[in-house]
């Protein structure tokens, strides 16, 4: 065991966070188009017969159908029928709909998982120690980097594609299962050894292909790749809760006081109720002052589509769609641009990923500690409930990263001595906004200067923790002592932290 630069204990054999990025890691493995046109098949069984599949292989998936995805479950059920074992799955995220994978984990069909986010029964099974190997939790940008650098080698990418044409070109913009942008499928398309498009709609010609048919080996037509209603997962409405609204108002005031609302600014915010309320406040300020944003990036919601169509935002740089309004906007708004996972957040993307051009990002937290480390991977008992997604990518890239959270949630203080698990290192987190006060990372002396005289209640982060303790009492913090069930991998491939079972 050794410790990384933020004091987290890691097993041997991994590069600790804070150690130099070895030059080899930024090399690219060669990619080349497939020599022949894709072969069209009509069942997953036929695809499995055509591919030479072996135990121990890695299959990848994307999560653009979110909690409505059918493809990962169907493919892995076929793998099980074929008697394959010891497989690693590399989906960009896993949702509650992936519950049918749990028995496959328990029976050793699936023994490894590499993903950016997991929530639901699969996350519970991993937390309970049922997966044989530790899961690897990447960031959205880090997954693209890992695939392109060969750290994550994919034998077969099974990509859900809502519409495919006769040449194998694919798009998510149209089709009965249209889910919009397919940005997270892009590294898999270009770097997996074999690529299978799984679709439920084949047309003569796709006008604006997002996925290039020249890299596809097989196209398989099945009755349905997913349930579109599942795309809209989580909160997509502005919070009406007074504490959330107070936090949002203070966050918008802070962003303004920090001088970030200037003509041509850029931003990213999440799809949570408080984040949506922050955007509503920023929009009000923009209208009052006649300001325009150059772009907004990330997961796109109806709120940003409205701002684009109202002329308040110049363009949307969209890596995934969080609701069906965003999906529909793609086909009617030319300034609604699809971007790839690498373009969005990979640290190796040249000249620079979109996240590096952000003026500010508004992010959530399950926990945040006195060093400003943020946890969105586990709950306070150490169970996996999420993962970075783009959290660590945008926190690093944006000029100012703002975390918004209630100071106390269901009696638990959210500000604490040390977070249960580090998802985003404190060096990338600049400001914490709670309903009881705002804390600025001491390394951002420039921000502290700007906020002096702003009237905002800026206090040391320790004062927020102590205030929380006067409300809730000091919680006992149990330390999980079981085996390591997951590794949290930073976007550069180094290890930030581990998750242990109880």
């Amino acid at each position: 065991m050794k410790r990384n630069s933020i004091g987290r204990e890691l097993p041997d054999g991994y590069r600790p966070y804070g150690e130099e990025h070895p030059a080899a890691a930024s090399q690219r493995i060669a990619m080349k188009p497939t020599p022949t046109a894709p072969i069209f098949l009509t069942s997953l069984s036929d695809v499995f017969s055509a591919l030479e599949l072996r135990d121990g292989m890695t299959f990848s998936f994307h999560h653009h159908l979110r909690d409505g995805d059918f493809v990962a479950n169907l493919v892995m059920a076929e793998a099980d029928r074929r008697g394959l074992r010891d497989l690693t799955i590399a989906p960009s995220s896993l949702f509650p709909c992936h519950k049918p994978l749990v028995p496959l984990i328990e029976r050793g069909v699936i023994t490894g998982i590499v993903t950016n986010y997991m929530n639901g029964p699969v996350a519970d099974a991993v937390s309970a120690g049922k997966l044989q190997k530790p899961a690897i939790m990447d960031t959205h940008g880090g997954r693209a980097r890992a695939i392109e650098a060969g750290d994550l080698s994919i034998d077969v990418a099974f990509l859900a594609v809502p519409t495919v044409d006769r040449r194998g070109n694919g798009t998510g913009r149209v089709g009965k299962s249209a889910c919009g942008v397919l940005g997270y499928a892009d590294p898999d398309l270009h770097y997996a050894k074999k690529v299978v498009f799984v679709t439920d709609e084949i047309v003569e010609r796709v006008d604006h292909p997002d996925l290039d048919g020249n890299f596809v080996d097989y196209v398989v037509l099945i009755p349905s790749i997913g349930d579109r209603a599942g795309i809209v997962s989580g909160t997509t409405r502005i919070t009406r809760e007074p504490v959330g609204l107070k936090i949002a108002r203070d966050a918008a005031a802070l962003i303004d006081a920090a001088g970030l609302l200037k003509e041509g600014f850029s931003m990213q915010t999440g799809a949570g109720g408080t984040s949506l309320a922050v955007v509503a406040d920023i929009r009000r300020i923009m209208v009052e002052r006649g300001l325009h944003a150059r772009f907004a990036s990330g997961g796109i919601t109806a709120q940003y589509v409205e701002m684009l169509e109202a002329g308040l935002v110049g363009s949307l740089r969209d890596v995934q769609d969080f609701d069906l309004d965003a999906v529909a906007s793609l086909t009617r708004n030319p300034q609604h641009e699809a971007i790839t996972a690498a373009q969005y957040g990979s640290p190796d993307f040249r000249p620079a990923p979109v996240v590096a051009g952000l003026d500010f990002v508004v992010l959530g937290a399950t926990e945040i500690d006195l060093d400003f480390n943020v946890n969105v991977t586990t709950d306070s008992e150490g169970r996996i409930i999420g993962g970075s997604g783009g959290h660590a990518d945008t926190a690093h890239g944006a000029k100012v990263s703002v975390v918004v959270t209630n100071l106390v949630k269901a009696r638990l203080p959210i500000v604490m001595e040390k977070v249960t698990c580090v998802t985003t290192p404190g060096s990338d987190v600049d400001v914490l906004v709670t309903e009881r006060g705002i804390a600025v990372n001491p390394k951002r002396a420039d921000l502290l200067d700007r906020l002096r005289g702003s009237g905002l209640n800026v206090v040391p982060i320790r004062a927020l923790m102590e205030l929380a303790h006067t409300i809730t009492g000091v919680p006992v913090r149990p330390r999980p002592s079981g085996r390591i069930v997951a590794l949290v991998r930073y976007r550069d491939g180094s290890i930030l932290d581990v998750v242990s079972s109880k």
Partner: protein
Amino acid sequence: MKIGSAGTLESNDALVTVQEGVGIVVSIDSIVDAFFHDRIEAEVRGELARMKKQNVHVTIQDKGALDFTLRARVRTAIERMEGSQ
């Protein structure tokens, strides 16, 4: 058998049920059990002591109630059990 209850299962509240029994028995089902079990039990026992109750069984279904909420719910449940309110 006299029974009383107070509170709700809303977030940050607790549903407290009390009934007459032999000695004091406290059973706790809390979403923050791992962090506050002992503190919740101490608050409940403290309130019973203040009310000079020595023979009551208490069931707490806690959704993250703060200490003053727990004390108030226990007190009201006891008063309801005794039919004093």
